[in-house]
């Protein structure tokens, strides 16, 4: 028996694999393009229960079992059906549990283990279908019913989902754990399956469903808000089209101006810089340095524009008159050269009866010496007279200077 079953199953799966493209095309398009495939292949698939023809005139379609398999495995968001028939599953669970207990009672262990595996299968199926339903609902919420475009369609989809949640919740009420635990009795395995495992799944599903319900309501509110806004916009345009001279009343003339139209204007102007603020010195410098560039350029342009007259009269000669002090120093140098004898500056000063401040005179002599070229300096020797400060060493007070030839 089982060998035959295995063979048949393998044949079915092979056919599915072999014609995977046909099946996927049908899954996407809904119907088979019969002219594209050989009638033999189609016939074979019909016999295997993959395809079927709902009406003699209609085209071939995928069997719902295959479609469900694909939807479940591919997590396709188009999957909107939700298996809410929990009551029937529960009834079959109870029946199987009774079978199992009876077989145990009469010590038919083989039968009992067969019933047990059946029962396990059913329990897991039930919990899987529950979690699947919740997952499907969630996936639709997370992409905000992205598979339909208009807001109205989204609202309808949302309403459908809400109906499904309500159905699922009412089906969940069919769980009677007191009955289930009574059926399980003291049998450890039954208790584990019927009470522990199912209860965990049940409480999880109930929790998730309440979240789903809240989110759906939330979304519905948002969709309605969108709908309202769209209508508002369209309505306004329509109104303006029908009444082109419509103007809203001047609400600002009301004694109580609505807050919507009461918006104060800008009163914050630009502050003036405080040039005495040391903290900002750096910033001001940068600002000014970038500013002067602009002004310099402008100023130059103005200059060029204003220089239009050309002065063709003879340029007056400029006579450079030397400072009398400088002349006196030069005379002093010449005097030393002429006499060939060293002479102090103050002596010369007394001799000639000069009228400058003596200190200025000495200073100018030193300056005159320093101003000579390197070569000329070589001819003269400058010897200062004076004394060190008593307290601060390194400070030398010059009282007089001797200038001589080397």
């Amino acid at each position: 028996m089982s060998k035959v079953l295995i063979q048949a199953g393998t044949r079915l799966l092979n056919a599915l694999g072999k014609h995977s493209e046909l099946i996927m095309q049908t899954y996407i398009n809904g119907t088979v393009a019969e002219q594209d495939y050989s009638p033999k292949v189609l016939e074979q698939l019909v016999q295997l229960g993959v395809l079927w023809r709902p009406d003699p005139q209609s085209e071939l379609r995928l069997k719902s079992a295959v479609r469900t398999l694909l939807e479940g495995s591919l997590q396709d968001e188009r999957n909107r059906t939700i298996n809410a028939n929990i009551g029937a599953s529960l009834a079959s669970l109870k029946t199987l549990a009774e079978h199992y207990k009876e077989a145990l009672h009469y010590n038919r262990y083989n039968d009992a283990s067969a019933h047990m595996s059946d029962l396990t299968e059913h329990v897991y199926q039930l919990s899987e279908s529950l979690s699947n339903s919740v997952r499907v609902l969630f996936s639709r919420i997370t992409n905000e019913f992205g598979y339909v475009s208009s807001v109205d369609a989204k609202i309808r989809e949302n309403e459908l989902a809400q109906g499904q949640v309500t159905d699922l919740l009412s089906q969940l009420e069919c769980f009677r754990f007191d009955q289930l635990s009574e059926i399980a009795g003291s049998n450890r395995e039954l208790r584990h399956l019927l009470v522990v495992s199912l209860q965990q799944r049940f409480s999880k599903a109930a929790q998730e469903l309440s979240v789903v319900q809240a989110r759906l309501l939330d979304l519905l509110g948002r969709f309605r808000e969108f709908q309202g806004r769209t209508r508002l916009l369209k309505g306004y345009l329509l109104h303006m089209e029908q009444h082109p001279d419509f103007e809203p009343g001047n609400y600002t003339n009301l004694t109580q101006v609505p807050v919507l139209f009461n918006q104060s204007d800008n009163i914050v102007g630009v502050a003036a810089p405080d040039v005495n603020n040391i903290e900002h010195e750096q910033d001001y410098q940068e600002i000014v340095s970038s500013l002067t560039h602009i002004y310099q350029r402008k100023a130059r342009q103005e200059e060029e524009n204003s220089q239009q007259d050309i002065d063709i009269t003879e340029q007056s000669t400029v006579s450079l008159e030397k400072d009398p002090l400088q002349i006196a120093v030069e005379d002093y140098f010449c005097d030393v050269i002429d006499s060939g004898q060293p002479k102090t500056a103050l002596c010369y000063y007394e001799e000639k009866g000069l009228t400058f401040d003596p200190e200025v005179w000495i200073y100018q002599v030193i300056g005159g010496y320093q101003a000579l070229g390197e070569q000329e300096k070589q001819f003269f020797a400058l010897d200062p007279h004076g004394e060190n400060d008593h307290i601060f060493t390194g400070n030398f007070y010059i009282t007089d200077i001797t200038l001589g030839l080397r």
Partner: protein
Amino acid sequence: MMTEQGRVLSALLQGKFICQVTDEEAWRFLKRKENVEQLEPHLSLLNRTLSTTAEGDVFFASYSTIGEAERKILTQQFQETASNLVPLVEWLLLVQQANETDMPVTMGNAIRLNELQTTIEDTPAYAEQLEKISRYRMFGSTSVNLDGQLKQVFKRLTELGYLVKPNPEKQIYIATGKVEHLYEILRFIDETEALSLSEQAEAAISQGSLL
């Protein structure tokens, strides 16, 4: 250094709308009651008070007492708003229709200019609509090509504070709280003038005419 309080205060005094999109930090600041209490005396000194719109998600400063000078400013503002309503509504509808999701533009919505441009270019009706919108005085576009018109419209909307462009190098705009304010104004006009705009739109849709 200016404190957050000072920064928010000066933004308000400049007549700016503060929402989560334009200035999230300031928005968070204003969401706290004690901060607002501290701010209010400064505002009231200048005959202003903090107001909110869009269910408390958008903040702005309004006059606390309205004298002649204030009324003059408000009237001027209102006239500008009223004359801008039609272009703005047409623009909102254009973006909504060209945006395949059919969702109205709301605060925080991202509008990708390139995608929008592609859709509008591919649909002559939208292109015509855009040209009409860009010619309004509010946008003042003189461009003959679609690219220039679209850019001008978005530039003006950014200047007016309806959109922000978070990244200057990307052509992505985000709708600000001022868009919500616009909806509120429409709703207000609808109610005050008893226009029953929604009903008009619904009737038109059910008759299959227009839109």
